[in-house]
């Protein structure tokens, strides 16, 4: 009996039969309704105080059932207008690599010890300019910011 084919077939078929990478819409981290400002949408999401230092390195997910990783929190910065953004690496693999972009913190939500971008699709994020620190100041680790919430996406 050719059971010694085990090895070859194992490799071939494990990859061939690997379940599809799927994503689906969900009612968890819904994008804000059209016309609503990011700040207004955060206000609807019961924003809770979170320590800035606790956000560093958190995974940032797409709000879909397959919880696709968009990147990680690199830093939190404030611009001259006082607007706070999360600097994240984007376009890498599994949270590593890619380039830095700054996403308004009101476009994001807390999901346990992870974050999600609810106001922008990955396609929109791909259009964001690469982050430049000019004109921004880092927000101190010990500072607290209020960030909206969402339920898990499925």
């Amino acid at each position, binding site marked *: 009996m050719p059971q010694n084919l085990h090895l070859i077939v194992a490799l071939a078929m494990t990859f061939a039969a690997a379940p599809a990478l799927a994503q689906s819409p*969900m*009612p*968890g*981290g*819904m994008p804000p309704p059209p016309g609503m400002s990011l700040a207004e949408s955060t206000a*609807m*999401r*019961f924003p*809770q*105080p*979170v*320590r800035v230092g*606790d956000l560093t390195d958190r995974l940032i997910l797409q709000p879909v059932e397959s919880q696709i990783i968009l990147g990680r929190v690199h830093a939190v910065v404030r611009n001259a207008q006082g607007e706070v953004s999360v600097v994240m690496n984007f376009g890498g693999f599994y949270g590593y690599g890619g380039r830095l972009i700054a996403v308004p913190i009101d476009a994001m939500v*807390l*999901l*346990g*010890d992870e974050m999600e971008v609810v106001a922008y699709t990955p396609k929109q994020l791909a259009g964001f300019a690469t982050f430049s620190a000019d004109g921004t100041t880092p927000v101190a680790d010990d500072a607290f910011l209020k960030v*909206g*919430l*969402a*339920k*898990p996406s*499925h």
Partner: protein
Amino acid sequence: MKSPFRPNDAPDASVLDVHRPLIRSLERRGLLRGGLTLGSLVMLTGCDVKRPEAVEAALLAISNLNDKVQALLFDPNKLAPTYPDSMILRPPKFNAYYDVTDVKPVNGATWKLELSGLVQDKRPWTLTDLQALPQSSIVIKHICVEGWSYIGGWTGVPLRTFLERTGADLRAKYVAFKTADNYPSSIDMAAALHPQTLLALQYGGQQLADPFGFPIRLRTAVKLGYKNPKWITAIEVTNTYPGGFWESKGFPWFAGM
């Protein structure tokens, strides 16, 4: 938890409620049939089994049996692992059967906790009344049936203390909860009396925030997350199976850890 918006043809809760007593009384027969149906159906149809009534009934019969096995496995003196305060996730993870934008905050000033069933003193409680009771703090892992978990720090009145103060019949089978968000829930008395079961008033040393169940919620270290109702408005001690929100949709009732 599963959103009620998916799937579109969500199971009809009333059908299950109607069937539950019947299933309980026919448990042995259901189990036997369950074993046979389970085996034969899987053989015949592989993984694409829809939910014919017989399969559903068989699965629920086994689920009821599992509840009994779980009750036997439960050691009332076994404590869940606890963690240092530094590991508390702040803020905690939000979850409900709807998204956070639909949370309806409860007014703590007018809120009252009603009591019913096998309780001697049924006078309603205010938040101030509860705050005056002895409090206890635990840092425990919250584990959701979905698989995620986080470490949370909770302070509140041990449910045992509350039940003793109100003269509840501690030999009754169930403690049931009603909530402001229409999320009925219930646990067995053994879990209610466990030292790590609290009527939580605080998280991380601060008053519970609105999305996490203000003014009070249940936090028990010995049950899965969905057995921890938030925004509690009424407690009933009873010997009649009270069920619960997800239980009526098919999830197991005991859900013990």
